[in-house]
């Protein structure tokens, strides 16, 4: 019972940390591009503001349009709950393994894409078409990366995988490096960051994700934004904890948990900085160069898989 509560607590922690992470990234970015930076808490303020606002719906919006934010939020939060953030061996990790995790993302994506077409605006259709295309290409890459990990750990259960890397200590696995790079590129694509998409843009022709949620307002928008922040964080936690699990709590003792909390925060902030650097040096690319980008991600993950088969198990 207690560990179920812990699991709940971890999930809550997870979703409450997500805006903070975004705030951190924005702040660092501003510094990097020497602009005046908003406070770390800005994302929270935005959410609260949106929650307070009245919601305006287009006349033609059907129930799908209204249900989507909740479904998306639900799926993403559930996804967040199965990712080991600070502690391992929590029971909820068994609810869904990493493949299901990926499926949660595609569930969210599908509903967003549907909702985008509900009103019948040209932008909605455009965004949804593009997003489904990107998703269709990102998902296999993501799965390949995951499979590499799963094969060497011979499990798709995240906790087990993390434990495996912990126990096997520091081993230099070419497959893991490839897989990690692949995973990072996919993360960039899936969370709609530069160079695939630009979260800050509102230039219609370059929008992908933004175009889909143009018609949302008020709390619906808030939920979707929050879900996106959580998704970004999920990716970063995955990268952090699967490939550098050190510091995560293996026993549920107070100081272990505290330690791992510190550890993960540090790791996330570090990753955030990396992301900022990446986004700063990169330029947004044309839509039809995205497939090449994702193709490369897929190639990396595939290489990871093959090196695993060839070099590490010596078949």
């Amino acid at each position, binding site marked *: 019972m207690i560990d179920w509560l812990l699991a709940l607590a971890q999930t809550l922690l997870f979703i409450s940390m997500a805006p903070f992470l975004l705030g951190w990234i924005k702040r660092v970015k501003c510094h990097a591009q020497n602009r005046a930076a908003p406070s770390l808490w800005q994302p929270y303020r935005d959410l609260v503001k949106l929650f307070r*606002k*009245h*919601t*305006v*719906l*287009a006349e*033609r919006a*059907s129930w799908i349009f209204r*249900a989507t934010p*909740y*479904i998306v939020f*639900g799926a993403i*939060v*559930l996804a967040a*709950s199965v990712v080991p953030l600070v502690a391992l061996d929590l029971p909820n990790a068994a*609810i*869904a*393994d990493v*493949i*299901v995790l990926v*499926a*949660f993302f*595609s*569930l969210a994506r*599908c509903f967003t894409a*549907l909702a985008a*077409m*509900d009103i*019948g*605006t040209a*932008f909605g*259709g*455009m965004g*949804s*078409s*593009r997003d489904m*295309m990107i*998703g*269709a*290409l990102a*998902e*296999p890459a993501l*799965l*390949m990366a995951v*499979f590499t990990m799963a094969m060497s750990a*011979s*499990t*798709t*259960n995240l906790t087990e995988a993390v434990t495996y890397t912990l126990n096997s200590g520091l081993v230099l696995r070419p497959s893991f490096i490839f897989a990690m790079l692949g995973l990072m590129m996919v993360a960039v694509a899936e969370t709609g960051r530069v160079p695939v998409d630009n979260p800050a843009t*509102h230039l219609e022709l370059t929008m992908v994700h933004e175009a889909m949620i143009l*018609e949302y307002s008020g709390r619906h928008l808030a*939920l979707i934004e929050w879900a996106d922040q959580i998704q970004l964080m999920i990716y970063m936690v995955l990268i952090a904890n699967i490939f550098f699990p050190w510091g995560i709590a293996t026993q549920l003792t107070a100081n272990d948990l505290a330690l791992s909390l510190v550890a993960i925060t540090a790791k996330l902030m570090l990753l955030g900085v990396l992301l900022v650097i990446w986004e700063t040096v990169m330029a947004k690319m044309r839509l*039809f160069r995205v*497939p090449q980008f994702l193709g490369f991600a897929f190639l990396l993950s*595939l290489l990871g*898989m093959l090196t695993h*088969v*060839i070099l590490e*198990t010596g*078949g």
Partner: protein
Amino acid sequence: MSPLILAYLALASALASGVLALGADRYPNLLRYGSSLLLGFCGLFAILAGSWALIDETHSTDQLALGLPWLKWHLRIDPLSGFFFSIVGVLVLAISLYAPGYLREFTHQGHRQSLSVLGLFTGLFIFGMLLVLLADDAFVFMISWELMSVSSYFLVAYQHEHAANRRAAFLYLLMAHVGGLAILLGFGVLAGFSGSYTFDAMRAMELSPTWASIAFALAFFGFGMKAGMVPLHAWLPEAHPVAPSHISALMSGVMIKVAIYGLIRFVYDLVGDIQWQWGLVLLIVGATSTLLGVLYALLRNNLKRLLAYSSIENVGIIFCGLGLSMIFIGTGHTVLGVLGLMAALYHILSHALFKGLLFLGAGAIAHATYEYDLNNMGGLIRRMPQTAVFFLIGCLSISGLPALNGFVSEWLTFQTALQAPVLASGVLRSIIPVAAAVLALSAALAAACFVKVYGVAFLGMARSRRVARAREVDIGMRAGMGLLAVLCVVFGIFPSTVISIIDAVPMMLLGHGAPSASAHGWLWLTPVSPKVASYSAPLVFFAILVIALISYLLLRGEAAKIRRGPAWDCGFGSLNSRMQYTGTAYSMPIQRIFAPVWDIKEDVEETRNAVQPLQTDGIRHQLQALDKSWSRLYEPIGSLVLAAARRIGRIQTGSIHTYLAYSFFTLILLLWVVT
């Protein structure tokens, strides 16, 4: 009293419904109600018989005094056939609810086709399918198999005013015939060695690996052709859509499965020792079918044709499952083999349900709007709310989204693929993950495809007047779709329970169940062991529900008034339906990325303004994305035969002297040969 009795009842009522329909030309209601009622009984009996045999884990056999004097009809129902029997039953039940409403338009005056024909061959078609599942010797199997093909051919040719339909029907019958011959030959190989055509004899005997492989190749060709594997698939998307929709549902939903049943029966039950090379073939063909199937589907805008192509994709997934299982069995990992088989079986079940549902949905749309073209639809969610819900469920589960049945089978397939490291051969270990990646790609593309379908057909604004005026279909049709939709959800939420029932099939075929799959109760699905992978569909389903609900309740405060207003759309003024993304536009990015897959014919005609040549008055855009297998495979063979015929034709010159010379020289030649 045994399952076989119920099976006979099912057969009888199928036949009866066909016979009863003979009077339908005079009394249309005989078909709409009488036959449909009988079909309903047929479905019920089939479900009962099937599930009985499945749960009982026994098999009962029987002989009918028909057929050849020395080869009676051997019939038998066992868990395997029981499983498929109940799938057929479910679909038949659904269409029996659906048909009365759907057939109303066929009974209108001025409708030129004979209703008797429709009813008769529907009955025979179902009868044939059920009989195939019962067959226990090659002779009955072939008879019922071809009966199934022929009667479905008549249904495909039913609306034969359009030349395209005639062509499709001809192609279908031809391919069915060729496939049938291949299967016959495959059985011939087995019978040649066992000396008898009964399946028992075939089970008993041992084949040399070479002959076994030959037999497998023939069977794979025949059954694969019927199942629509690439590159022999081209007939399928032609034939399945042109039949009346409830028939399309049966063809795509069940007939394909019957073909796969044949393959499973042949390989797992009759041939004997499975070789892993077969599995590899199946895996590669399956992966190819999956990818090409979904890509072809993506570019179709005729709803039913799109669905037919997606059937090819799903057959590919099933083949992948079977292939993996064969590889594992062939290399001695029976337990994993069971897992793969289970994945395949589960996907067979899921696909039957959601593909049937989607075809019925397409039929409902056509019934309400007379439209098959996506680009004329739109906004149906407001005109046909309930159909929209059912169709959405279908779309979600075919896209393999969690907590629905489509996802379970894909997840199981992935889990099987992930067990590749146990294999000794490095080649297999590296091929299987690639195949898995292809599966992943196809799954994502399928999601894109069906988001397109649903978005274009049901969301947005109506693109044509008839669609704008559509009305919700009658209660029967909704009931038919509803049944399947509910089943999609149920089989999605309680996979462990279902699997523990299906377990009888691998039990019978391989003497080994998948014990760990449902070892941890109905809540947890743990195919190998909880340590390796676990999935709890019920928890996922309810968790998402609960979170969504909580967030909804938390947010419905005073602050949260909802105001309706015009769409913002970045402030661009009034919207109209022609501004929306069409199906073609939606799939354009994919088309550009995977361009080499199709034979693309695109042409754009600009009509310039007469006064100012720089100004364009209108643009006409035509896009044809043709299936490559036509230009690569079918047309060459056709022209080859014709060329041969032309050459042969020359020997008949019309001159009697030549003819006399023929007989003269034949005589001389023979005399010379024999002396």
